[in-house]
């Protein structure tokens, strides 16, 4: 395999909606169009400049619309263009961006709009994921019911103190105060309140859990010629990969899945990263339950096995720390499920473009966007940089 002929891919436009519990003022079409329009404005482009649309979202049951891309073709200016729908569970927002990036990398299209959304107020996500008998029930009572035992396994395996999860939640909720698009803006939240919030799925407390949001995120991806025309600095894709493994099998490590490690290794190899802790300036990782920050720090190679919680505890992952994690407030503050992965990818791009506003990491040159889904089995990641990749 040779990828030497690939076209470099640039992110030149980013748009999000203000994520909230329920956008009752707009239809699904209105929601996605709002994000797409903002991405176009950011890129200084208009609908005719877009060659193709790649759209992603999580299960169709969340809105009760089967294959909603058909209905959304008009709202996204896709009429007469290719429109492709991706669905890879919770990682879909990231996967969708990677599929769009490949259209540019393969030189099939010059400029692509990619968008992911969820309008969760249209249904109840927890029960949408909970299957009635006789179906198999890998997710039990919502995602928390599935992930809580794996968090407990991590705690037992590493001996991490009980308070680590609350530190992550408190950090991310405070970071969200600096992000105008974040769903939760809990100005008066204290660490004590996080630690005394109701236990939902032991050991996961209410304040360590992601909200259910309505929101959309869009990006404009383009080639070198498109990047030259960009009014704002582009973010360049230095590496991107997806990996999947089965839901359940003997020997599966739910705490640190092999697919996640393989995916990160692939991305780092593409980007020439040999020491992620030293060479990556900011991370937007998919942390729907607080404890997943230390777990993914290890899975992604930022810490040795069993050591991830120490980075959290010592403040390394704070906004002003050595390796800021989720400066946007992350999934813990904003979770339109199908869009959450793309928000991670987009926030990583905002950081290296220097456009993250109040939650900007000073001097960020390389940032990782990460998403996962299903039973810790679907992973998608990209690494973006301020410089055009060499070669």
């Amino acid at each position, binding site marked *: *395999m040779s*990828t*030497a*002929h*690939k076209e470099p891919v640039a992110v030149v436009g980013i748009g999000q909606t203000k994520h909230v519990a329920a956008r009752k003022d707009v*239809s699904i079409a209105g929601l996605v169009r709002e994000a797409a329009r903002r991405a176009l404005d950011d890129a200084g482009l208009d609908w005719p400049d877009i060659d193709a649309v790649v759209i992603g979202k*999580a*299960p*169709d*049951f969340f809105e009760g*619309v*089967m*294959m*909603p891309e*058909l*209905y*959304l*073709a*008009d709202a996204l200016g*896709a*009429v*007469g*263009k*290719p*429109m*492709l*729908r*991706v*669905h890879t*569970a919770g990682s879909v927002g990231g*996967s969708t961006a990677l*599929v769009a990036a*490949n*259209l540019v*990398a*393969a*030189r*099939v*299209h010059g400029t692509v709009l990619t968008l992911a959304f969820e309008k969760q107020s249209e249904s109840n996500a927890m029960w949408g*994921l909970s*299957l009635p008998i006789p*179906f*198999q029930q*890998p997710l039990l009572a919502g995602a928390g019911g599935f992930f809580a035992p794996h968090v407990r396994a991590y705690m037992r395996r590493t001996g991490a103190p009980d308070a680590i999860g609350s530190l992550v939640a408190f950090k991310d909720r405070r970071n969200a105060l600096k992000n105008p698009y974040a769903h939760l803006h809990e100005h008066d939240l204290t660490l004590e309140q996080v630690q005394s919030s109701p236990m939902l799925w032991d050991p996961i407390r209410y304040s360590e859990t992601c909200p259910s949001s309505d929101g959309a995120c869009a990006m404009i991806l383009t080639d070198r010629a498109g990047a030259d025309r960009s009014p704002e600095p582009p973010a360049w894709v230095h590496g991107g*990969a*997806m*990996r*999947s*493994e*089965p*839901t*359940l*099998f003997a020997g599966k490590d739910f705490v640190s*899945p092999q*697919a996640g490690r*393989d*995916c990160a290794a692939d991305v780092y190899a593409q980007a020439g990263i040999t020491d992620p802790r030293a060479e990556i300036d900011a991370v937007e990782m998919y942390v729907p339950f607080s404890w997943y920050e230390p777990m993914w720090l290890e899975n992604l190679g930022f810490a040795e096995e069993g050591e991830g919680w120490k980075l959290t505890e010592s403040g390394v992952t704070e906004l002003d720390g050595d390796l800021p994690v989720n400066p946007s407030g992350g999934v813990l503050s904003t979770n339109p499920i199908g869009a959450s992965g793309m928000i991670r990818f987009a926030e990583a791009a905002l950081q290296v473009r220097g456009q993250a506003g109040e939650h900007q990491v000073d001097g960020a040159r390389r940032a990782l966007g990460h998403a996962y889904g*299903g039973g810790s*089995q*679907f992973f998608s990641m990209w690494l973006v940089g301020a410089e055009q990749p060499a070669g």
Partner: protein
Amino acid sequence: MPPTGALRDVAIVAFAQSDHLKSTDELSEVEMLMPVLHEVLGATGLATGEIDFTCSGSADYLAGRAFSFTMALDGVGAWPPISESHVETDGAWALYEAWVKLLTGEADTALVYSYGKSSPGSLRDVLTRQLDPYYQAPLWPDSVALAALQAQALIDAGHTDERTLATVAARSRDAASDNPHAQVRGARPQGDYVVQPLRTGDCPPIGDGAAAVVLAAGDRARALCARPAWIRGIDHRIEPHAIGVRDLTESPSTRLAAERAGAFERPVDTAELHAPFSSQEVVLRRALDLGDEVAVNPSGGPLAANPMMAAGLVRLGEAAARIHRGASDRALAHATSGPCLQQNLVAVLEGEDA
């Protein structure tokens, strides 16, 4: 930029499909799919671990559960972890995503599969959930009723009549006599109106099925297949959703996709059209300038077997298989999605010496 500027040559090197059946009560989706995967991999001699990229197509609304594709993935054997993706639509679009992946050089081989079981639910009701949720879906206009509106528009415009539609249906089922996988084989009566002007014979059978292909690039394709079906061009386009703003007698998205795929550069000898209703073949023939010299749906087409989310991929596979066995030199394959041919994909496949 036309896809003719493609960076690499990519071919379909193997195709397999299930027997498409009215009901598969005893089989889970995974059990329906597994023999197809084994057959398509067996044809190339590749093991799962030797596939660089895997992409599938399916729909949760058919399965009645969220993330239904994850169970199929367990069956594929994604261990050690694989590079993999999924589209929530017909597998023809999964093939498109895989084709792009191969063009980037990130993969040399790809496994593409798709499947759908329509038998557990009421398909005509289920498909109404594809419609605009605010203005159309609450009225529950079903897929046959919408296709009947399209058929009546064609008749009113003088493009066809009921007798011509009956010949399309009869030709398709006659052709399917030689297709052991087809659900409806051989002559059957046109029957009564389902929704006027469409009769039973004008409508596709409702059933369950699966399909898979293997893609490979360059010399890898030549090593895996005696006569690869090279993808000379592939493109897809979408139209407005509301059927009231479309001229249902035309398919401009098919026309444009075909132009972009290079379909009009030279005549094709075969066309596999994803026209679930006889009337839609009329629309597609007009959009694609297909004359009587072209063998249209020699497999029997969707009027003989229409497994949801797989029938489009089957068209690509059937067209490729004809090239593999030397029965075609240049074939067009078409797939559709959405009500009344809203979204369309066209691929042009050729044998090496064509």
